[in-house]
């Protein structure tokens, strides 16, 4: 079924990103090459003359600045289904995106052909955004800027043969079937990608980064009962990080399998929340940070605020949450899915305090919005690939721990809902309305977790919900799932974390 162009002014998060593409033994790590910067892309015919000509061409009509974003990405995925590792896919992505910025305006063009003619043609297209009579200055030299190394790899994925990966999937499959006779189907997939980027600014600064990503997912289907009483349930779990093969420790694999099985079997005893209306909701530590991502995160992306279309526009340095609530967006967490050494505009990955003790302190900026607000960019300029212009995006978004004992938080609720795992969320950043979908949880009755619940949507309004976040637990936890954030027709990997919190009242989409 066809669908229309995605609205630019909405955001959405899902816990199930696209499966990776295909194997490329000719990728960056398979060959063992450690070339960086321009030397890496020399194999594709890119040289300093091309850089100089492309920048000059891009700035022919003027413009404040321009950049070139070269990218070479390889990915591979292998999957087990019906007991056999009999499906694999891989992908190779190569191209350049050329951007010219003039004030708030952007000219953007990309090409998957890195020949001189194609690159200059893209530069000429991007140049059309500017209308100056004079070309802007072009760099005399190019200098590679050093950045941190936040995703060290101990064991390269491409050094691990498929014959070593297959037993892992087979083992998880076997253990899942052994766990319970009701289990009928198991799917396991192992994916990794390696994306090499080279950013060239019209100032002459250049930036290079190799960005690994790995993800492992498992889904289970179980059947219970017979005849008219037969019931089916499916659920899943996944883990992801910017890491090498060493990421797949025994603990992580065991935890993945346990979660996939337990979350599926849990559903047989669970029901859609048997309550409706506004109720206290306790969000379990970790993945419950989907609340932050949807209720606050998108609304604090600076492009929306610059355009005055976010509910958080004009609210910097105002109280938007109770004391004790501090929310950070962070690109520095080593090995994290949301970690970046450098953003996709050449700005260092860094930590940005969005809300400090309840006060909105900063938006998430790209270069355009930072200039608009007269602040330094925060390293949030990200893009899905060279096919997209960067815009402010989240990285790892989390709330810091508070003072309350998480057990006391549950005990404080007479009747409400405890939310444990989630699948997706969405927000209307202007109205502030957001939702997230509880896949598993519990009723809270007289301060105790009672009946299991499932498949229940929560809806609220961001600023209202922040104001009602009245208990913050001391048990901070990070979720290591493969979260994917969508905005403006492009997706980026993100992560999130939170302690147990109580929201005093939020609308629960159960059944009465």
């Amino acid at each position, binding site marked *: *079924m066809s669908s229309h162009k995605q609205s630019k002014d909405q955001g959405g998060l899902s816990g199930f990103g696209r499966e990776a593409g295909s194997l*490329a033994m000719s990728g960056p790590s398979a060959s063992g090459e450690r070339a960086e910067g321009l030397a890496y892309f020399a194999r594709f015919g890119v040289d300093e003359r091309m850089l100089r000509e492309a920048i000059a061409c891009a700035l022919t009509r003027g413009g404040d600045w321009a950049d070139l974003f070269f990218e070479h990405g390889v990915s591979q995925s292998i999957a087990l289904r019906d007991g056999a590792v009999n499906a694999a896919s891989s992908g190779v992505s*190569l191209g350049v995106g050329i951007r010219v910025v003039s004030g708030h305006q952007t000219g953007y063009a990309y090409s998957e052909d890195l020949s001189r003619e194609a690159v200059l043609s893209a530069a000429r*297209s991007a140049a059309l955004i500017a209308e100056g009579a004079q070309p802007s200055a072009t760099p005399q030299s190019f200098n590679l800027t050093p950045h941190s190394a936040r995703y060290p790899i101990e064991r390269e994925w491409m050094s691990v043969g498929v014959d070593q990966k297959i037993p892992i999937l087979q083992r998880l499959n076997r253990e899942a079937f052994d766990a319970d006779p009701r289990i009928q189907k198991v799917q396991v997939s192992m994916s990794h990608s390696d994306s090499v980027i080279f950013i060239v600014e019209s100032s002459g600064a250049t930036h290079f980064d190799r960005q690994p990503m790995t993800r492992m997912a498992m889904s289970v289907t179980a059947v219970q009962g017979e005849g008219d009483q037969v019931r*089916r349930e499916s659920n899943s779990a996944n883990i992801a990080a910017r890491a090498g093969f060493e990421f797949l420790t025994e603990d992580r694999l065991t935890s993945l399998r346990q979660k996939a099985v337990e979350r599926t079997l849990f559903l047989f005893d669970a029901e859609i929340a048997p309550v409706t209306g*506004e109720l206290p909701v306790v969000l379990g530590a970790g993945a419950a940070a989907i609340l932050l991502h949807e209720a606050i995160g998108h609304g604090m992306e600076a492009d929306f605020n610059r355009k005055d279309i976010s509910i958080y526009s004009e609210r910097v340095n105002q109280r938007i949450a109770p004391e004790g609530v501090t929310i950070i967006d962070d690109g520095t967490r080593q090995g994290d899915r949301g970690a970046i050494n450098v953003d996709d505009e050449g700005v260092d990955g860094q930590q940005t305090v969005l809300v400090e003790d309840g006060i909105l302190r900063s938006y998430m900026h790209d270069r355009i919005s930072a200039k608009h607000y007269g602040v330094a960019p925060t390293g949030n300029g990200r893009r899905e690939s060279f096919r997209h212009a960067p815009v402010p995006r989240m990285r790892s978004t989390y709330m810091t721990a508070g003072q309350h004992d998480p057990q006391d938080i549950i005990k404080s609720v007479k009747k409400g809902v405890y939310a444990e795992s989630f699948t997706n969320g969405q927000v209307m950043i202007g109205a502030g309305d957001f939702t997230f979908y509880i896949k598993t949880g519990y009723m809270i009755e007289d301060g105790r977790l009672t009946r299991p619940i499932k498949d229940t*949507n929560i809806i609220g309004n961001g600023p209202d919900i922040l104001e009602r976040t009245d208990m913050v637990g001391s048990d901070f936890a990070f979720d290591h799932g493969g979260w994917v954030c969508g905005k403006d027709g492009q997706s980026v990997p993100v992560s999130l974390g939170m302690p147990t919190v109580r929201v005093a009242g939020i609308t629960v989409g159960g059944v009465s």
Partner: protein
Amino acid sequence: MSELLDQARRVAEQALSLGAQEAKVSLSSSRGVSVEWRDGEIERLQDHTDHGLSVSLFVDGRFSSHGTSDLRPDAVEAFLKDSIALTRYLEEDACRSLPDPARYEGRAEVDLELCDPSYREVSADQRRDEASSLEELIRARATEELKGKEGELTSVSCSVGDHYGRSARVHTNGFEGAREGSSFYVSAGLTLKEPNGKRPLGSAFTYRRHRADLRSLDELALEVAQDATQKLNAQKLQTGKYTVIVKAEKVGRLLGYLLAPLSGAALQQKRSLFEDKLDAQIASPLLTIRDNPHRHRGLSSALWDRDGFATAPRAIIEQGVLKTFLIDDYHAKKMSTEGSAPVWATGASLHNLEIELGELPLSGLVNEVGDGVLIDRFLGGNSNPSTGELSLGCGGRLIRGGELTEAVTEFNLSGRFDQLWSQLVMVGADPYPEGQPCPSCVFEGVQLSGV
């Protein structure tokens, strides 16, 4: 086009020469241009050229699929070699093979008019002028619609774009197909600001194969202005069971939940609640859905599906009775080996849905309902395809005395999607003119959770 097809043939031959026994090869190239406009000026100009190669390889009883945008000849050769080598490590799958070539036969000989030659003539100035004109129209309409309401106009955005693409596909057991297509779109957004700081957003779009078929700027301006102003001062909804009208442009989402469990993958993996429901009642008798892959200028029109099967119009649901599953070749083979009888590959793809209409426009439905809720947007939410449970965030308007009244927001629709479709009591005569042309639908006894 013949050049692309020749290239696909060469890649297929190369795959065989490198060790594959069978292969499926697709090549594509495209170009897209767009202008995004906001508040009196261009916000972004975008221009792109794409190309790509994807292959499915059948090697020694094993299967894999791969894609690359690096089409340099030496890179393609290395790509094929590596892909074939990877495939040999996998476990065998006896169900993986190209379809029976007989399924490729019977392709309709019809010009689907997927390509508008005028795409070459659209200039940058035209796109910019169109966006600028649309903004003026929206501001004028919004000013009118805002009279007597508490809200101010904050921002207007418009996008105008067009796209042209070609593709060619070859299967080594005889399938060949090539096609080209164009598309044009115009979209608009209007952000208003309430005294409390909330900024509701209205949106509208038009998307067509041929430029002349796009809806007028006047029509878009009115739609986006009304969509935004009708969201002003939205209040929370009282929890309860309601008669609900789901507005035409949003019905597709609910339909998607009903159709997803019909796929071969869902059936074979035991994740479909409709597993034994062929020829059984799965929805209200008011629901009839057919698929027409041969609609001229249809956005999803095609002469062949993803397996290469010749496409044909067919009934999906007739008067609420399920008439077909959507089973691809691979999953049909899988289910045939797992079951006691062969399973026929019915074709996995859906193209242009045609839903049998009722007699009343939206205003007539509202009048008939009397008291209830009109849902005009969904926000997030999800469903359980194994059980049918669903819970969706919503917004819309109250219906009182047969009239649309105040805006309502921040509520959920919960229940089961199969039961919901059985509670369908009226179908409108107002197919939405964009995307899948669903009409507004009226459901009784729907659980809505608000305050």
